[in-house]
């Protein structure tokens, strides 16, 4: 019975891991890049002046002036304050009626209060949205990723049950031994970063739980879903519009109150509900770089008189606090660059675990004389192809003409086109030579990126390194490291083949 149970769990583990595995690899890799979403957004806009110190009062005034000028008829404004990681003001507006778009997002240069004069790009948002939305219409991508995350959770649980010598094999890695090495790598990457894998998978599901399992909210709140999100501490619910015009308070005049309440912490975002209406509300939210939980402290002001109304989140009950904490941990915006790098490395370990598992699945069957052409082609197309596609995105960002129409979307197109070419190559040749070709191709693309960066911008390594411009220098060094890693993998696959041939 016990033997049968373990065997059933092993069977479940291999299928729950294999079927969504190719997608999970991509989600882990692009999700890891998303820890540096603001930095990527900055790197992809090399025209921006770097190192601009922001002055919160001035930035708020500039944003309010811009929104008053361009969108006085909007029903809601959102001002995202410039941060050290991305020194730009994000302004978003929503309109329910009247002329103009119903939703608009702009990035302002905080000093001029005008939209930035930089190349059109999705920047870090491209990878961020890909990792849970897959750039698919409706909610299709989120549903597919949710199904895969659920399978991942099952694979983690069954993996723990199947992996008998969890502690005995903790540090074990025996390279150059075919499937045995892939099993070691799979186990090591899984066990060493196990807390991360469980946290990231579970919190990812929790973040989108109202999409995956809306039935509890539907049953108890009916159509008034906004009330649930307000009670759960996720959204602020403004009072209905009064319909009487009234001037909006000077937002900058509220900043000293925020500074007094949050000593040492910056204002992260300012929501304005009903600007120009007598019932307007202004919500200040603290920046998200100093705290773990996403239950960020808020200050709610009357939007006309500017009086402080309340701070509701201080009384947030336990379950809502837990949900906000899981949300904050998944996003990983706290703790500074070192912690972001740790999250990034843990995410890479997740991708490595999935990748090694996929290679183990086909490798073990090939050693037993079975070939699975589709699985083998998909392995190469995803593990070899995705790094090529990521490099292609950064290449496209530097090479596409700045004035090109629909430029931002075409960068994304280059990502998918490169991935498709790699996929076709993988479908045609699935042998060890094809793996080496793709790894070498990715290595070449990454290693040449610093050169391209130096030729097309004024931020090349010879400039950025002496100037201490760690953003651009860091990216170039990371590209070199990534290219080196890819080159190492291509060498490794050659050596492995020789050993197997012997």
């Amino acid at each position, binding site marked *: 019975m016990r033997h049968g149970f373990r065997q059933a769990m092993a069977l479940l583990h291999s299928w729950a891991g294999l079927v969504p595995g190719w997608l999970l690899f991509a989600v882990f890799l692009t999700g890891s890049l998303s820890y540096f979403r603001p930095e990527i957004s900055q790197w992809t806009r090399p025209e921006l002046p770097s190192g601009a110190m922001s002055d919160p009062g001035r930035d708020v005034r500039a944003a309010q002036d811009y929104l008053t000028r361009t969108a006085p008829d909007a029903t809601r404004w959102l001002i995202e304050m410039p941060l050290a990681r991305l020194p730009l003001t994000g302004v978003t507006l929503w309109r329910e009626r009247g002329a103009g778009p119903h939703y608009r997002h702009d990035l302002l240069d905080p000093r001029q209060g005008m939209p930035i004069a930089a190349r059109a790009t999705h920047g870090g948002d491209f990878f961020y949205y890909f990792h849970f939305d897959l750039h698919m219409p409706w909610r299709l991508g989120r549903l597919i990723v949710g199904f895969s995350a659920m399978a991942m959770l099952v694979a983690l649980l069954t993996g723990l049950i199947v992996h008998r010598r969890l502690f*005995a094999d903790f*540090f074990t890695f025996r390279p150059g031994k075919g499937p045995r090495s892939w099993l070691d790598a799979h186990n090591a990457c899984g066990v060493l*970063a196990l*807390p991360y894998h469980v946290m990231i998978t579970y919190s990812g599901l929790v973040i989108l739980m109202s999409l995956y399992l809306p039935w509890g909210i539907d049953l108890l709140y009916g159509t008034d879903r906004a009330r649930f999100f307000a009670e759960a501490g996720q959204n602020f619910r403004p009072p209905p519009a009064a319909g009487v015009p009234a001037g909006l308070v000077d937002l900058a005049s509220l900043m000293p109150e925020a500074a007094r309440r949050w000593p040492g912490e910056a204002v992260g975002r300012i929501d304005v509900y009903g600007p120009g209406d007598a019932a307007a509300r202004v919500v200040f939210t603290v920046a998200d770089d100093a705290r*773990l*939980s996403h239950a960020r402290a808020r200050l709610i002001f009357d939007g006309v008189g500017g009086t402080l109304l309340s701070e509701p989140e201080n009384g947030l009950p336990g379950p809502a606090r837990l949900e906000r904490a899981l949300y904050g941990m998944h996003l990983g915006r706290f703790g500074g660059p070192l912690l972001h790098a*740790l999250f990034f*490395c843990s995410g890479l*370990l997740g991708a490595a675990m999935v990748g090694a598992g996929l290679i183990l699945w086909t490798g073990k069957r090939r050693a037993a004389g079975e070939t699975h052409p589709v699985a083998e082609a998909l392995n190469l197309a995803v593990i070899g192809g995705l790094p090529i596609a990521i490099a292609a995105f950064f290449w496209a960002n530097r090479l596409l003409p700045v004035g090109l129409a629909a430029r931002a979307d075409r960068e994304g197109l280059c990502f998918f086109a490169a991935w498709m070419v790699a996929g076709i190559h993988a479908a045609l040749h699935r042998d060890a030579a094809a793996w080496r070709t793709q790894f070498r191709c990715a290595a070449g693309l990454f290693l040449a990126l610093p050169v391209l960066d130096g030729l097309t911008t004024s931020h090349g390594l010879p400039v950025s390194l002496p100037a201490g411009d760690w953003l651009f220098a860091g990216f170039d060094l990371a590209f070199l490291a990534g290219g080196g890693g890819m080159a190492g993998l291509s060498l490794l696959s050659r050596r492995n083949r020789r050993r197997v041939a012997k």
Partner: protein
Amino acid sequence: MTLLAFALTYGGWWALAAGMARHGGPMLGRGAFPAVLAPVLRATGGGLLVLSFFTAAGEYGWDIGPVAWCGLGSVGAVPLVLMLAWRPALAALPVAPLLAIGWWLSGF
């Protein structure tokens, strides 16, 4: 302080691995693994990991600190696993310099 916490996790993992029958011999550079040392090494390893937990909490606070500690533990074990596969006897080399630099940087 982060580097000190990292050095402590790496050292902790090293001691734990050296206390295991499978890795101890090659790591300590002897033919046979001295069974007497194993419990001492394992206790040292556990103690260093606990120390690194408090170091991380001291640096990042009690909410972010444990998360940072988990991340340091995961990422710190990777070079050790690779060293054990490549040159187990050299895995101990980085421990002392890492601890020294970490100690110095944290300004004790």
